[in-house]
């Protein structure tokens, strides 16, 4: 599904990604771990098409097509979804309106009929229960006055409504208590299917207890320095990053 080859990217002239290689197939769950500043978030932002980052070298193919040629919204319509680490607020725009606009943009792209307000409301209310969000949140401004945990659940709600082919979760576990973590993990697990893939970016192993990855990759200084199965995550939890020769001074 997704093939990343020798990807280099920089922000404000500073190189962050220094040659990433990664293959993700449909049905797989990948986790990217690594200390702060290793480039984890940059990788997710670059894949989603944040224009603040400049790709300087390498290529990313999605189903064989050059992803980097596409605008952010085109990537989204092709099924790339990014759950943000710090979801931004849009005051005055109701969550309901925002979500329906997004869902209908994707439906239009697929040549499907747009959902009217009533149909969508029914769907959105059902789905919000799945992530334990009171349907009243749908009436509020996008992320406006939401707590950290509510924002994260709202991101998963969006993923469930948009049904992406590749869901990228950027530190979705940060700032969540154990109950909220469980809710979020259940949501992600509900997304898993043989047609979809999940790429989780996380600093800690605890999310991986709930969403078990097929592959774990360790990112350090803009490169993947080690890959393995889910057992690698436990090893990192026990031994830290030091044994891989990584200086985790920032993280500690």
């Amino acid at each position, binding site marked *: 599904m997704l093939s990343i080859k020798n990807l280099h990217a920089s922000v404000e002239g500073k190189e962050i990604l220094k040659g990433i290689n990664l293959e993700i197939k449909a049905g797989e769950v990948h986790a990217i771990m690594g200390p702060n500043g290793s480039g984890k978030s940059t990788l997710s932002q670059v894949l989603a098409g944040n224009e603040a980052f400049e790709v300087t070298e390498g290529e990313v193919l999605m189903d064989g097509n050059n992803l980097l040629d596409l605008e952010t*919204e085109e990537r989204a319509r092709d099924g790339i979804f990014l759950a943000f680490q710090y979801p*931004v607020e849009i*005051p*005055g725009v109701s969550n309901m309106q*925002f979500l329906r606009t997004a869902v209908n*943009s994707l439906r239009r792209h697929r040549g499907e009929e747009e959902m009217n307000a009533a149909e969508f409301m029914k769907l959105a209310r059902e789905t919000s229960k799945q992530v334990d969000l009171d349907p009243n949140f749908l009436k509020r401004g996008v992320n406006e006055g939401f707590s950290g945990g509510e924002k994260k659940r709202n991101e998963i709600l*969006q993923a469930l409504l948009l049904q992406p082919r590749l869901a990228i979760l950027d530190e979705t576990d940060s700032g969540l208590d154990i109950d909220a973590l469980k809710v979020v993990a259940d949501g992600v697990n509900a997304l898993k299917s043989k047609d979809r893939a999940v790429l989780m970016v996380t600093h800690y192993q605890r999310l991986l207890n709930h969403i078990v990855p097929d592959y774990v990759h360790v990112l350090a200084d803009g490169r993947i320095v080690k890959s393995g199965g889910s057992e690698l995550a436990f090893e990192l939890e026990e031994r830290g990053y030091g044994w891989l020769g990584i200086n985790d001074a920032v993280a500690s």
Partner: protein
Amino acid sequence: MANTDKQVNELIKREYEHGFVTDIEADTFEPGLNEDVIRRLSAVKGEPEFMLEWRLKAYRRWLEMDEPEWAHVHYPKVDYQNISYYSAPKRPEDMPQSLDEVDPELLRTYEKLGIPLHERAALAGVAVDAVFDSVSVATTFKEPLAKAGVIFCSISEAVHEHPELVKKYLGSVVPIGDNFFACLNAATFSDGTFVYIPKGVRCPMELSTYFRINAANTGQFERTLIIAEEGSYVSYLEGCTAPMRDENQLHAAVVELVALDDAQIKYSTVQNWYPGDENGIGGIYNFVTKRGAAIGKNSKISWTQVETGSAITWKYPSCILRGENSVGEFYSVALTNNYQQADTGTKMIHLGKNTSSTIISKGISAGHSSNAYRGLVKFGPGAEGARNFTQCDSLLIGDRSAAHTFPYIENKNKNSIVEHEATTSKVSDEQMFLCRQRGIDPEQAVSMIVNGFCKEVFKELPMEFAVEAGKLLEVSLEGSVG
């Protein structure tokens, strides 16, 4: 009438003596302004003596006035001698006969705004009789109004039919010498709207200029007078979301509202005059004086405006809160794009006891435009227990636009309360990235964010208008992204 004909004939004769040629376009005055032009204008309209006197008084006053320069707008000087002050309504045979003859670009915009087909034709200036039966439109609204005793007619008609009301109220809120543009209007206004709601009557429908199709082309100096008698209510809609065809560059309208005891006037405007092209060439100068006098106790005047058009907007719909417990409201969305300039806001003049006012202003600047809020909140010595709440928010799109806020507060009463809140924000890259990451088009994203920003004002608009206003913002913001 015989007398009027005689006057006209005399005038025409005099014009010929002065060597004017009028045969080519008999219905349009040659450019220029002097006492003769005003006499001729008044005569053409067959006005009674008192109106002519009023106009002349205004004109003489205007000669002594200077054009104001305090507004935060820049434009080349207007040559007032280069304007024609009267143009008869177009004859049906001079208008486009069908939509096929209308600029396709204009039609494309109408379609985007969702304007019904038959309305599009009327707005595009197609001869009304050629499109639909104007009589039927007229009767559907005239009957229920007549039954309720509501007078809704052109101001020229009111001058003839209801001179006592015109004499009593015209200029009572905006005196002839109020300001340069209002004074010019008093001398030269060509037509406008007159509304009178009798005591205790709730106007059975929302009055809209659109219904008065015959007066849609009343020219650049419009005058509106609305009087709400004791205990009455009226909601008036001015303008239209559709861009109107218009060849006049300068618009200097005056609107006067009078609310007596327990009366309420709700005045909503959507202004979408031609803003000029994306390089700032052309466009309307909209220099308008709008003011309401809440004379009666417990009376209320509410202004809601959505301003997206015109090259320059200079406009401060205001309330004079004289009656005890009277209420003034101002809800405004002003959007400027490309090279548009707006200096708009309100004045709330608290004179009576326990008067209260609310100001909610939302300014949006995109492109190279400049958008200023200018507001005055004044408490007179008698405004015991009066209060005002002001909230003014500015939203910037891109990094070449400007927002300014000029609030003035004058308080001569110790027992009054004034609150002022102001914010300036930007449509952030993060917000745009979130929207686009969810598959939403950048232009739709901006429009959605801007609509969210304006929500508090839109909810004050009549339902149908609110929907149109949302779409209007979308159209006005085209090209503001990227």
